[in-house]
């Protein structure tokens, strides 16, 4: 992919500018909400975080499909990083959601907010992605099983939202659930925040992919150096993520899978 070769500095710069603009809008432009006051401003952070998390999970599933179709290990890397980033964003969304709930409803956790409950279930499911992945020794099977998980869980995301939404005790008026019922100034701030958060996600995603690829390249070089010096080190199969499939030399290394893809 072209983006992994090009340095994503332009993107990082755009992200910084958009994030600053979004924060400036949140604090100096968007009006103070009548009922909740200043606390409502966490909405501009929490809702984009949650939306990006769910989109990241679904994108991870789509990349999993692409991996199973093309058998290109780079799609597996992209899927892994998307889900990994989404987990981090998701934890941030849960924390900000908890703070918002404590401030406006008086409790750190409320069971009658369907979005919160669905989100928790989805986080619990995705929390098993890495344990599953790293419990599989064989590198190729690890990628395949991870993609199957990503696809299943990606389809589970909308299914779960429908199920939790249907529960009667959860039907209650939505607090600022979409930008459609917001005043124009709030809606604009929200959209800018959402764009900023999307850019942040994509930037971090690209940086993590580059970091992983660099580490694999380094490890492969070290292995070649070791082989050249007559030691018994062998080239690692994780080179596939750098060079693409079909260029892997030798059998996969006999090292624990956790080492192959540790963060």
């Amino acid at each position, binding site marked *: 992919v072209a983006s992994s070769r090009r340095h994503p500095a332009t993107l990082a710069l755009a992200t910084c500018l958009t994030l600053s603009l979004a924060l400036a809008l949140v604090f100096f432009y968007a009006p103070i909400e009548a009922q909740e006051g200043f606390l409502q401003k966490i909405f501009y952070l929490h809702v984009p975080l949650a939306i990006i998390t769910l989109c990241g999970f679904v994108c991870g599933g789509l990349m999993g499909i692409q991996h199973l179709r093309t058998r290109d290990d780079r799609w597996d890397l992209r899927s892994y990083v998307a889900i990994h980033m989404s987990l981090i964003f998701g934890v941030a969304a849960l924390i900000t959601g908890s703070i918002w709930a404590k401030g406006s409803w008086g409790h750190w956790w409320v069971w009658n907010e369907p979005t919160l409950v669905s989100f928790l279930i989805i986080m619990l*499911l995705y929390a*098993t992605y890495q344990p599953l992945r790293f419990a599989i*020794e064989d590198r190729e099977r690890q990628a*395949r*099983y991870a993609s199957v998980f990503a696809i*299943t869980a990606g389809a*589970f995301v909308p*299914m779960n939202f429908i*199920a939790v939404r*249907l529960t009667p005790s959860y039907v209650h008026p939505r607090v600022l659930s979409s930008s459609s019922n917001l005043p124009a100034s709030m809606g604009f701030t929200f959209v800018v925040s959402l764009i900023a958060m999307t850019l942040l996600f994509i930037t971090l995603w690209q940086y993590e992919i580059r970091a992983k690829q660099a580490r694999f390249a380094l490890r492969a070089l070290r292995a070649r150096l070791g082989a050249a010096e007559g030691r018994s080190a062998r080239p690692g199969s994780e080179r596939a993520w750098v060079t693409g499939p079909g260029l892997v030399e030798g059998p996969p290394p006999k090292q624990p899978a956790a080492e192959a893809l540790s963060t």
Partner: protein
Amino acid sequence: VPAVRQPPRFGSALRALLRKELLVELRTLESVPGMSLFAVSVFVVFHFALNRASIDGDLAAGVLLVTLLLASLLGINRLFVADAEQGGFDGFLLAPVNPTALLAAKALALIGYLLVLELVAVPAFALLLLGTSLWPALPGVIGVLALADLGVATTGTLVSTLAVRTRARDLLGPLLALPLLIPVVIGSSSAISPLLAVHPPALGAWLSGSAARWLVLLALYDLVFGLIVYAVFDFLLED
């Protein structure tokens, strides 16, 4: 010219695989008796944990569904263990058979285990814990459990295949299955709870009330996960 044998058709492969599954279970009795015994033990645990002699309504539906879910996790965890440990996967891969036949056979076998489990657990529940009569609720309960079993069996087969060839299979199976099965729990316990109330509605009133929504949810879950598992299962059986 040597005769070229055609690969077995889907139906005959499915029959052979299902027969093998049920035969192995009949000879070893590894899953179903354990699941049933576990369910009865959990009822006793619930009796002491809740400190209640009889329960009804929401609580009864929750206890019944949670017990069945936990017991089915035992079966899900064991579903592919023999294949992984004793070369069943290798044998299957050598045979020119559609992998979907294995999926269908395993899911049908799991449905069979769940039916036997429910034949034991539901009467035991009615005897030990349920405060009202089960008879008027029985047709509704059977319908809901049938839809739930279908979902548990498809998702369970997928989870079992994913977890069985990992290092931490006993841990990963339940960890993966529980969040995936939460929609089934939501649908079936919400549908069953009015039936187990002290004054249950008539079956017609129940069906035309909120239950229809939950039955549709369960059917939708079965359909969606059936399609997903059908689509991804082949990729789990490549080595």
